[in-house]
């Protein structure tokens, strides 16, 4: 193995290649880095987990609203930072759904802070709800193609989620294994998100994330 003297060279094989946009957050420290992230959603909490090994960042929703972090500085469509290529980018997230029932957790590449109005691809973990499609599944979700349920097990464990937007398809790999391919990509440049939400309006959904990396390919 060649020993490079810089992180840059490890990622690019030298200096002849001009590196594209990359973002890394380890979610370690005293607080969420609010120079990068903004949180949205009524109620709930977003904080570095306290006194928990491999806790990372903890997000807890209110019982009636999604709680999320992303690059949108406010709840409007004009103040979003979307540096990632909808047809050539990768998102890697290490995350875990903590709430066992009536909760979902997801990471996404999206063109809007507002889920209902967005064009996005999501790696979504869905707990046990009231018999809804996708219960107890790891799912590749998008408005651009039909949702795909995977055979991934270990619903309430940490997993490595990798979303890759290619020219016209999106791939979801979990723990290094390709699990689903969707026939579409978002409509515009994208930003990353991490979010939890109650599915039935009766619980506070709880998820943890210990790593996120996004880069253009």
């Amino acid at each position, binding site marked *: *193995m*060649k020993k490079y003297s810089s*992180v840059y*060279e*490890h*990622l*690019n*094989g030298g200096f002849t290649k001009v590196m594209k946009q*990359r973002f*890394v957050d*380890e*979610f*370690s*420290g*005293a*607080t*969420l*880095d*609010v*120079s990068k992230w903004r949180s949205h959603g009524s109620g709930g909490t977003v*904080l*570095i*987990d*306290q*006194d*928990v*090994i*491999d*806790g*990372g960042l903890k997000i807890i929703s209110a019982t009636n609203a999604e709680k999320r972090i992303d690059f949108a500085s406010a709840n409007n469509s004009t103040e979003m930072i979307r540096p990632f290529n909808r047809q050539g980018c*990768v998102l*890697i997230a*290490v995350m875990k759904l903590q709430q066992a029932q009536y909760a979902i957790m997801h990471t996404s590449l999206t063109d809007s802070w507002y889920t209902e109005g967005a064009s996005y691809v999501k790696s979504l973990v869905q707990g046990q709800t009231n018999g809804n499609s996708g219960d107890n599944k790891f799912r590749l979700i998008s408005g651009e193609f039909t949702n795909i349920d995977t055979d991934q097990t270990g619903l309430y*464990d*940490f*997993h*490595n989620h*990798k979303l890759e937007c290619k020219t016209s398809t999106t791939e979801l*790999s979990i*723990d*290094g*294994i390709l699990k689903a391919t969707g026939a579409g990509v978002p409509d515009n440049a994208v930003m990353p998100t991490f979010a939890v939400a109650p599915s039935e309006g009766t619980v506070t959904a709880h998820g943890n994330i*210990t*790593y996120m*990396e996004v*880069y253009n390919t």
Partner: protein
Amino acid sequence: MTFNSYHEITTPLTTVRKQRFVEWFGKEITTKSWEFFDYQGDHDLNDTPSIIDAGFRIGGDAGTTQTIMSFDNGGGSQYTQGTSFNEDNCVILWTVKLTPQTADGSGSHTRQAGWGMCHKGSQHWVDAMKVNSDTTSTNQLRFYTADASESYTDCTGQTHTVPFAEEFANYREELTSSKASLSIGGKLDCTKTNNLPRYTLMPMAYTKYPNSLLWIRYCEAWNT
């Protein structure tokens, strides 16, 4: 060999990555990471000077109190905020040096600093692991561990005294369930098996006494 992702430099995608923290100390300490706990409230320096390879530096308090840099300022309800590192399986790297802050501090024993991990951000002497400098007689660098109380072993290298620490060096401190070990400059220096920390940990560095000046260029911690 190159890697597609920063993740893969340390961990393949087939492995679920554990908690890791990296601080480069390039411009200013990032607000997301560090808090100061200043016992006396008058430590006179924490900055990133315009000096090549200086990193970040912390000056000592007047008197004999301490200035501690960790993830928690000790003043709020989140007293152990960010202690995501495993007391039974973790490593921390520090690239640091300790110099006198003023001319009259040179050669004296009235400067002290430490670098390691602790459970409560304002207490590096309970549930902790650290390298620090003796101030009593021998100028010896020491490797401490603490549960409810702390103990130390002297660093074994002949040059591992406080003057040695005046040059930047790499300090690697590792904890397992049965042992703490310290490597300096890539070589195992000493180990301890008693007074190992009981609770989860966060990175910590501190200075004590007004002549102390700790320079920190790099810190990385991870669960193994």
